[in-house]
């Protein structure tokens, strides 16, 4: 090698310090020491000697070091060479190390070459060398392998095939599936379709030990979560393990054992793959709807589907069946189902567990739907009319004429559902899902609820108010006569029938439209009812079925509007009838087309008859005698009621007997109640209008829902009946009045009758019916009526209404008219006299103490009066004249032969008193005597008084009839007055 090629020795710089740095550092160090010392020297209190000493020591130490530096600088002359030496030394040491390493490597090589040594001489190798001429040493891939001669291979395989054929032919216990085998390529190939294929061969031609396993493959594979038939080799480690087991089994039990082993192995594998499919399924769509258990030891898989469904669990058990094949059993809701016709493997031999589960679930759904349909048919007669099955898996339930519900079962969860559900359906579906056993019943109750809601919405739309408070106890249902015609199972009546109560806003409490809806029939029953609650128990007090003229289940709004009218009129009639019955009326409801009734009504007026023809009218015949017993009236009264909107028109027709000659009567009272009497036909008509809304609202107060408080009583008929009653009273009055020819009816109104009983105009009386209850009466008299004197007495007489009293009054009036006329006349005369007397006294200077010809009138008991005449007789006493008063009474008294007033039997007795003169003096006696004497012929009848009436002279008295009393009294009065005037 050339010199230039030698590389430079690497330079070493470690542990080397440049000299300049050494010098610089020590110079600075020395300077610092010096400076430090000089600084401390200033402050030091040490003696100078010590200071000197320290300073010297410092200087010496610095100098020593500088000497060393000097030495170093001398040495530094050779520093370059030393440096080179150092580099050389380091390099040589490295070389030394390299050499040592090389030696170690040689040692290691030597060790590794031990295996390259020739083997020790032994017998085997010696024989080998003897046979082959050289030992068979490992080539360590230095020599290429030599191929076996194909001819040899073919020959061997052919030999093997022959050998195997022979062996197979001789095999005694060959299992049946292994009959189908193929001998080829020196092996026997068995193939069990869809399970496995395996190959066995023999080891040695001369060996009798038997077969050993060559190959095993499964004939199926899990692909896309589906078991498909495809030849699949096992993983190497699995195969090796299986090979060991299989060979052991072959040596023990031969091919039969091998078959059993592989069969079980393949089935277990399939089951495991199914398990894996199921695991995948359970992680996806089927999560929480499906579960399965896999038992590898017992070799089965149990799949439970519809986990959330509340019913007995349904399972699919997959495992080895009795025929040793893989199969499944379907246990449907706890019962083994065998008629499903489904197979685990599809036609192409693949197994799709999801497909299988879906098929089974479809079957399940179909059978369930069928069951529900049958169950409904078992419960209800006409089930086929509204229940049908669609696509085998859906139940079509006809809810009403317009609506259908499609009930199905979700195949995933097993939950029942409705297509396009309404909230009601959702609720029912939820109920069904809580207990699937009652599906049929729930579906029927859905029908019930849909009916209810439909009716409810229709009714609500026509302003009916639903009342949920009313709950009728079951025992009350018997009163309804509910139609359970189509219901086979009567136990369900309660569950499938619902009563709902509706009312109108203006209705009084207790009035209801009762709707009976059922789940088993589309027929809806209607009732008009009165329902009352006592101590929390509702009870029907009256009920009447209603027939709606509509096709079953089809109701128009018009129907319900009409229903309003209809029910209202029914309820009103009911109330009216009840009211009348409470009054003791005997009633019968007649057809308004009854000819006689029609005739009667049409006689009244042609126009009115139309009204009675309307839909809402009701006609009732009332027995007259049971009501007010209107005098002179035919036995039957006809009550016709019409309802228009909120007004109730009440018409009462009656016919009077012809005896009564009456002018036409027609008037209205303040409440618009009117009465008309047609004198030609003698038919009277009472017409009154009741404002129902006012009345019913008054009746149905705020206490409506307070069932404990009795509903406020109100009366619809009150006005009409009061009119009728008045009319009746009036007729009674008229009856009395019209029978007496001396009476003349002047004016008639519904509340008052005026008639004249005397000859003069003012001699009339008005009887006023005081109030609606007709139990009292008052009288009114004209100002000039003589009877005004006894007005109060007369009023008292008739205060309590009684026709007898009226009769008595009339008699009294007639009887006492002359009496009172006389009284009035006398009183007027007396007044006149008195006035004259007053005038005289005012104008005359001579005070006249007593009026001349004056008299006093006194009445007693309204049947008697006294006229007291005074005569002043001057009597000469010793010195002065004394004026004595002589008193004479003319007594007029009504006397009755019997207890009752009678025009014929009651007489007026006119007497003069006192005629006894014992106590007075002679002159007076004389005067009285003269008086009596002069009157005597009159009383005696010697000088008869001219009069129309009967006069009986009784010597000391005169008895006369009411017609004569005026004349008699007047005659006597004139006479006595004349006598009194005379001296």
């Amino acid at each position, binding site marked *: 090698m050339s010199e230039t090629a030698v590389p430079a020795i690497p330079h070493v710089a470690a*542990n080397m310090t440049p000299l*300049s740095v050494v010098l610089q550092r020590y110079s600075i160090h020395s300077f610092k020491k010096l400076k430090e010392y000089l600084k401390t020297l200033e402050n030091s209190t040490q003696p100078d000697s010590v200071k000197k000493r320290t300073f010297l020591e410092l200087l010496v130490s610095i100098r020593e070091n500088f000497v060393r*530096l000097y030495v170093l*600088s*001398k*040495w530094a002359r050779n520093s370059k060479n*030393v440096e080179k030496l150092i580099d050389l030394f380091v390099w040589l*040491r490295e070389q030394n190390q390299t050499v040592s390493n090389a030696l170690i490597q040689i040692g290691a090589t030597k060790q590794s070459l031990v295996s390259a040594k020739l083997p020790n001489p032994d017998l085997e190798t010696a024989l080998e060398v003897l046979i082959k001429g050289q030992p068979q040493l490992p080539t360590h891939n230095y020599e290429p392998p030599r191929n076996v001669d194909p001819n040899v291979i073919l020959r061997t395989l052919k030999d093997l095939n022959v050998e195997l054929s022979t062996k197979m032919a001789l095999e005694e216990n060959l299992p049946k599936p292994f009959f189908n085998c193929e001998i080829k390529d020196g092996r026997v190939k068995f193939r069990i379709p869809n399970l496995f294929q395996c190959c066995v061969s023999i080891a040695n031609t001369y060996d009798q030990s038997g077969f050993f396993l060559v190959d095993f493959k499964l004939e199926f594979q899990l692909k896309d979560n589906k078991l498909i038939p495809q030849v699949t080799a096992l993983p190497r480690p699995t195969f090796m393990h299986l090979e060991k087991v299989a060979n052991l089994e072959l040596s023990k039990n031969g091919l039969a054992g091998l078959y059993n082993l592989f069969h079980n192995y393949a089935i277990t594998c399939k089951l495991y793959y199914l398990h894996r499919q199921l695991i995948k399924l359970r992680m996806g769509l089927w999560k929480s709807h499906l579960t399965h258990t896999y038992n590898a030891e017992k070799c089965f898989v149990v799949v439970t589907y519809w986990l959330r469904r509340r019913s007995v669990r349904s399972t699919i058990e997959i495992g080895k069946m009795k025929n040793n094949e893989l199969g499944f059993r379907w246990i449907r809701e706890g019962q083994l189902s065998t008629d499903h016709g489904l197979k685990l493997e599809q036609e192409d031999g693949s197994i799709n567990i999801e497909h299988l589960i879906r098929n089974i679930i479809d079957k399940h759904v179909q059978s369930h739907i069928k069951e529900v349909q049958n169950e409904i048919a078992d419960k209800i007669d006409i089930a086929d009319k509204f229940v049908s099955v669609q696509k085998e898996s859906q139940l079509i339930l006809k809810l009403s004429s317009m609506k259908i519900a499609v009930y199905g079962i979700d195949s995933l969860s097993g939950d029942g559902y409705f297509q396009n559900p309404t909230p009601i359906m959702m609720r029912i579906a939820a109920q069904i899902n809580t207990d699937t056993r009652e599906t049929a019943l729930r579906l029927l109750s859905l029908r019930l609820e849909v009916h209810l809601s439909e009716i409810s919405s229709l009714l609500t739309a026509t302003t009916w108010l639903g009342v949920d408070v009313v709950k009728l106890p079951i025992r009350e249902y018997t009163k309804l006569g509910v139609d359970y015609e189509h219901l086979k199972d009567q136990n369900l009546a309660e569950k499938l029938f619902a009563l709902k109560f509706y009312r109108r806003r203006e209705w009084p409490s207790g009035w209801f439209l009762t709707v009976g809806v059922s789940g088993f029939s589309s027929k809806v029953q209607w009732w008009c009812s009165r329902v009352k609650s006592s101590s929390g128990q509702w009870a029907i007090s009256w009920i009447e079925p209603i027939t709606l003229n509509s096709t079953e289940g089809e109701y128009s709004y018009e129907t319900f509007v009409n229903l309003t009218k209809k029910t209202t009129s029914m309820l009103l009639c009911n109330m009216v009838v009840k009211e009348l019955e409470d009054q003791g009326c005997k009633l019968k409801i007649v057809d308004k087309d009854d000819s006689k009734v029609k005739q009667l009504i049409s006689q009244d007026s042609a126009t009115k008859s139309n009204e009675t023809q309307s839909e809402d009218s009701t006609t009732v015949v009332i027995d007259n005698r049971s009501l007010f017993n209107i005098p002179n009236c035919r036995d039957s009264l006809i009550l016709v009621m019409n309802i228009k909107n909120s007004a109730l028109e009440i018409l009462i027709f009656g016919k009077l007997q012809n005896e009564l000659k009456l002018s036409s009567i027609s008037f209205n009272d303040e409440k618009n109640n009117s009465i008309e009497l047609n004198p030609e036909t003698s038919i009277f008509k009472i017409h009154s209008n009741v404002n129902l809304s006012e009345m019913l609202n008054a009746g149905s107060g705020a206490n409506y829902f307070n069932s404990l408080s009795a509903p406020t009583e109100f009366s619809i008929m009150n006005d009409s009946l009061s009119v009728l009653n008045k009319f009746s009273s009036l007729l009674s009055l008229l009856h009395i009045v019209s029978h007496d020819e001396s009476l003349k009816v002047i004016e008639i109104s519904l509340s008052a009758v005026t008639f004249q009983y005397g000859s003069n105009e003012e001699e009339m009386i008005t009887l006023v019916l005081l109030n609606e209850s007709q139990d009292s009466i008052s009288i009114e008299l004209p100002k000039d009526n003589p009877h005004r004197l006894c007005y109060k007495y007369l009023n008292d007489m008739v205060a309590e209404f009684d026709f007898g009293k009226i009769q008595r009054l009339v008699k009294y009036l007639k009887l006492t008219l002359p009496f009172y006329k006389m009284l009035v006349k006398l009183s007027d005369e007396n007044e006149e006299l008195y006035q004259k007397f007053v005038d005289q006294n005012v104008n005359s200077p001579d005070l006249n103490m007593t009026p001349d010809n004056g008299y006093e009138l006194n009445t007693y008991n309204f049947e008697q009066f006294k006229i007291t005449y005074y005569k002043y007789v001057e009597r000469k006493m010793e010195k002065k004249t004394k004026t004595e008063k002589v008193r004479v009474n003319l007594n007029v008294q009504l006397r009755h032969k019997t207890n009752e007033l009678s025009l014929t039997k009651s007489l007026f007795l006119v007497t003069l008193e006192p005629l006894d003169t014992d106590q007075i003096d002679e002159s007076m006696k004389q005067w009285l005597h003269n008086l009596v004497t002069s009157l005597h012929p009159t009383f005696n009848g010697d000088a008869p008084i001219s009069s129309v009436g009967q006069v009986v002279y009784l010597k000391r008295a005169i008895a006369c009839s009411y017609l004569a009393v005026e004349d008699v009294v007047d005659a006597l009065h004139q006479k006595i007055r004349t006598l009194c005037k005379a001296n």
Partner: protein
Amino acid sequence: MTTEAANPDTGSALALVESELSSTIETLIHLSVQVHDFQGTDEAKTGLSNNINKLIAQLQSLASTKGLDYVAVPLEIVNYIEDGRNPDIYTREFVDVVRKINQYLNGKSIAFQQFRDTLGAKIKAEFPDLEQEVNLIQSRTSL
């Protein structure tokens, strides 16, 4: 060896430093004498202070010496001088060590060559196929 003789290369930086060092040592000796004989007189004070200033000036000069970076001082030399031993001895001994190891390695080298040749001859004899390989290795490793 070279202690007494002055540096023949008088103009070099190293020679300058040597003279500076020797004058510094001299100054220090003077200073020591002055301190020792210091009596407190003004003259003595002035002399002392002059000397101190001189010393400081010399130190400053030393500290700012340039041109000596090429002189690398091994740490062991410093230790030698510190212990008061002659650094030339260290140099002599070091030369000796280097000579010895050089000889040792030379011997080893020769021994390896001989082993190589012997082994190569043996391999060639045993595996004639490898002769080329052996020759190649020999030619590559021979110096």
